[in-house]
């Protein structure tokens, strides 16, 4: 059981948790304690719940039962359940993508109230890239054609998801084709995953996992990529923007609306409605100075990137924000929304509003969001918040907040790196080739109560930038690091290694770049493609000195992201580990064997600093393979005659153990921590 200090490294979170404890209010942290001990079979991935002859469990200590009723062994069971998680994650991102495409369609036909295409240039470029004719067409016609073209990606039965071959380097695409890994359609592979994992279908763990990789590519190079690119055309392409983060952005004397969830469509409208003169006048009439719209989870990142809206917090902040007593409306759509918000809000004046037909909660007020009446709905939501403002009780907003810079994209990172006259990735590639930079790491993902909130993100990122690794971040990970000020240009002088410092100073960027929401991980994939296209760093994505990590991963979406990154050739450290340790075969496949075919692989190291070292060892291995110059300032993480890759799975497993490492043979008799004398006869 964790004590209070271990629950978070964020002082604002600790302050609110203290308040929650004092008022006997539960939170994810206290419910985590109540869930102890967790079921070991579930944790190890050897509990099969697929058919109704079960549930079946495999004895992880190697005794009977070693098979379920149907004969499925630990490897089959772990692989089946894991790729079901992949499919669920892909489904979540892609359904989000589908909604954005739908929004583009209704905007094109003029049916979406209040929406216009904010970046027609991006729209045209996207249409051209995807083979949609633009000549002689109006913006609306192009948008409609592009929306129809994009919509086909979801239901296509044969062929390939387009972005994969359009954007990835040729050698990577050829490898995918050889392995039959490019998804035919986004939905089709999800359906096939469910079919394959049905009772009595695919039982070969390798075959199952490879299909998991295929399914996941429909996320990174399909649904998520569409969500990002079409979102940029529709809502505007982000530009670097300053904002603030943490619970301290809530204002005591203003109406506070917290938008929580993932899709940008509604939140964009709410931001617009909060700036409506009538609404501001209504707020003033209730004694409020203004209207604050702040975000939690990826909605926060969407409106931060495009509107500069403040970020209230990341995933584990959702209940804590309500505990301030200063949230007048908690507006939610889909994904990462804790049902606990309802009981939490009931203790304060906060109104929880659900807006998606896909995600309702008993006890919440439901205002269904439809594009045709988007602005009216947004006005109603803002009005609800204003009318709720006078009902506030005691308000307790932590002081803590920090500045950040967000809004980086592939297009504008170009501008930054190349300067106004050289819009190119050349300077980034040169910095890596010359050894000033070791490589690039993407640190992404969630918060989890299994680890101290934000601690792993912050420690890993500090270790990486201190060793001359440029870090790009998205999602709740980015929020975690922005809370401690790592997303400001000033952070380079304090935390970055000398090589990275030089880059940051010349270009004027923070050492850690905020790329947006979870679907915006697709921006990172495109950036990697640009690095290959620029030349000098190999011919396929797996040649690049790069690595990814989800140090506080929690949801199926994170597993899907991990899968498409590995399938794209990246080394990914995922922690807490996926539920595969009950099967040594599946663990070995994911952390070792798969590298031979995909070029990428997983490690499951739990310690964020050790994980950073594994990631950097991988970058150094790639640097050596590319015969790049030694690092100008940083040390190598490769051991002489290194077998880093082969050892990683054992290292990962050992890291979870307090003592670390597995002795060659056990003592006789009782537990290892018992001294030998205690089992001798002392009569």
């Amino acid at each position: 059981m964790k004590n209070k200090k271990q629950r978070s490294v964020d002082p604002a979170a600790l302050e609110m948790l203290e308040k929650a404890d004092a008022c006997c209010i539960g939170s994810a942290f206290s419910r985590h304690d109540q869930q102890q001990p967790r079921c070991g079979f579930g944790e190890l991935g050897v509990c099969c719940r697929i058919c109704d002859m079960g549930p079946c469990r495999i004895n992880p200590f190697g005794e009977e039962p070693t098979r379920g009723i149907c004969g499925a062994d630990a490897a089959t069971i772990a692989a089946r359940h894991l790729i079901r998680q992949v499919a669920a994650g892909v489904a979540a991102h892609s359904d989000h993508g589908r909604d954005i495409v739908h929004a583009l369609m209704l905007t094109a036909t003029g049916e979406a109230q209040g929406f216009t295409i904010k970046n027609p240039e991006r729209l045209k470029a996207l249409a051209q890239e995807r083979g949609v004719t633009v000549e002689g067409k109006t913006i609306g016609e192009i948008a409609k054609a592009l929306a129809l073209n994009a919509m086909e990606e979801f239901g296509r039965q044969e062929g390939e998801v387009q972005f994969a071959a359009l954007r990835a380097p040729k050698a990577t695409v050829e490898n995918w084709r050889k392995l039959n890994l490019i998804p035919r359609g986004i939905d089709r592979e999800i359906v096939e995953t469910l079919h394959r994992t049905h009772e009595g279908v695919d039982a070969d763990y390798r075959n199952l996992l490879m299909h998991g990789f295929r399914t996941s590519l429909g996320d990174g190079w399909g649904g998520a990529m569409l969500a990002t690119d079409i979102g940029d055309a529709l809502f505007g392409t982000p530009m670097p923007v300053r904002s603030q983060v943490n619970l301290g952005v809530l204002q005591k004397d203003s109406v506070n609306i917290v938008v929580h969830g993932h899709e940008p469509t509604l939140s964009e409208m709410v931001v617009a409605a909060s700036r409506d003169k009538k609404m501001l006048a209504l707020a003033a009439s209730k004694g409020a100075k203004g209207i604050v719209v702040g975000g939690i989870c990826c909605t926060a990142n969407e409106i931060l990137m495009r509107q500069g809206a403040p970020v209230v917090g990341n995933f584990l902040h959702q209940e804590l924000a309500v505990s301030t007593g200063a949230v007048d409306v908690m507006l939610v759509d889909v994904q990462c929304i804790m049902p606990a918000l309802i009981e939490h809000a009931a203790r304060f004046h906060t109104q929880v509003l659900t807006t998606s037909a896909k995600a309702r909660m008993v006890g919440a007020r439901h205002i269904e969001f439809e594009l045709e009446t988007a602005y009216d709905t947004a006005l109603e939501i803002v009005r609800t918040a204003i009318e709720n403002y006078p009902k506030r009780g005691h308000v307790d907003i932590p002081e803590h907040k920090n500045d950040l810079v967000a809004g980086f994209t592939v297009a504008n990172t170009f501008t930054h790196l190349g300067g106004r006259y050289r819009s190119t990735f050349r300077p980034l590639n040169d910095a890596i080739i010359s050894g000033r930079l070791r490589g690039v790491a993407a640190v992404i993902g969630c918060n989890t109560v299994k680890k101290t909130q934000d601690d792993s993100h912050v420690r890993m990122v500090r270790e990486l930038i201190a060793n001359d690794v440029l870090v790009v971040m998205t999602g709740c990970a980015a929020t975690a690091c922005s809370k401690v000020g790592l997303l400001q240009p000033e952070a380079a002088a304090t935390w970055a290694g000398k090589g990275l410092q030089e880059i940051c100073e010349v270009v004027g960027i923070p050492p850690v770049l905020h790329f947006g929401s979870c679907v915006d991980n697709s921006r990172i994939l495109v950036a990697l493609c640009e690095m290959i296209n620029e030349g000098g760093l190999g011919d396929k994505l797996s040649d690049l000195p790069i690595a990814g990590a989800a140090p506080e991963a929690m949801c199926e979406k994170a597993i899907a992201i991990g899968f498409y990154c590995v399938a794209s050739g990246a080394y990914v450290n995922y922690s807490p580990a996926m539920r595969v340790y009950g099967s040594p075969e599946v663990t070995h496949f994911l952390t070792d064997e798969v590298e031979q075919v995909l070029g990428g692989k997983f490690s499951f190291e739990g310690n964020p600093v050790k994980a950073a070292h594994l990631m950097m060892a991988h970058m150094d291995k790639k640097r050596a393979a590319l015969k790049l110059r030694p690092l100008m300032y940083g040390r190598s993480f490769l051991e002489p005659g290194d077998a880093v890759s082969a050892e990683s799975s054992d290292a990962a497993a050992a890291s979870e153990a307090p003592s670390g490492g597995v002795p060659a043979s056990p003592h006789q008799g009782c537990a290892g921590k018992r001294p030998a004398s205690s089992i001798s006869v002392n009569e």
Partner: protein
Amino acid sequence: MKGMIVVKADRCMGCKTCELACGVEHSQTQSLVTAIREAHPPRSRVNVERGCGFAVPLQCRQCENAPCVAICPTQALHRKDDDSPVLIDQARCIGCKWCVLACPFGVIRMDDASHAIIKCDQCFERVERGELPACVEACPTDALTFQSLDAVVADKRDAYLVQIEHATGTLKT
């Protein structure tokens, strides 16, 4: 005896979490993820058995007049003192299995790796440190508790009193 492991069959869901916790407690590495990868993975000293319509974790009852201790030819099975659970000194065990035959509950078994028997030691070192036995701590439904015999008796009397009160109609509230 400081305490006994009390089993409430009506609360047992058959999840086998106690088996895992017991295995981990008797492992070298003290963590599930690493324990299952030890050269000789640990064996649980408690087994969840299925009866007709119920599941129940069975482990050594630490008999006062233990037939296993009486029959052991090498004094491998022993008690440290009067309060101690029955312990096995695996170095002395010759694997003759007399104790397995003598045990009325079937809760002693052979460990193939060490060629000696294994049985519940009531996590005596944990108990000495003031902790609960691993299986008791792990049980999510409190089907396993660790109580002194006096406390168990007192609980039984309380329950019996309630029965009498129901029967005589004197129960208030």
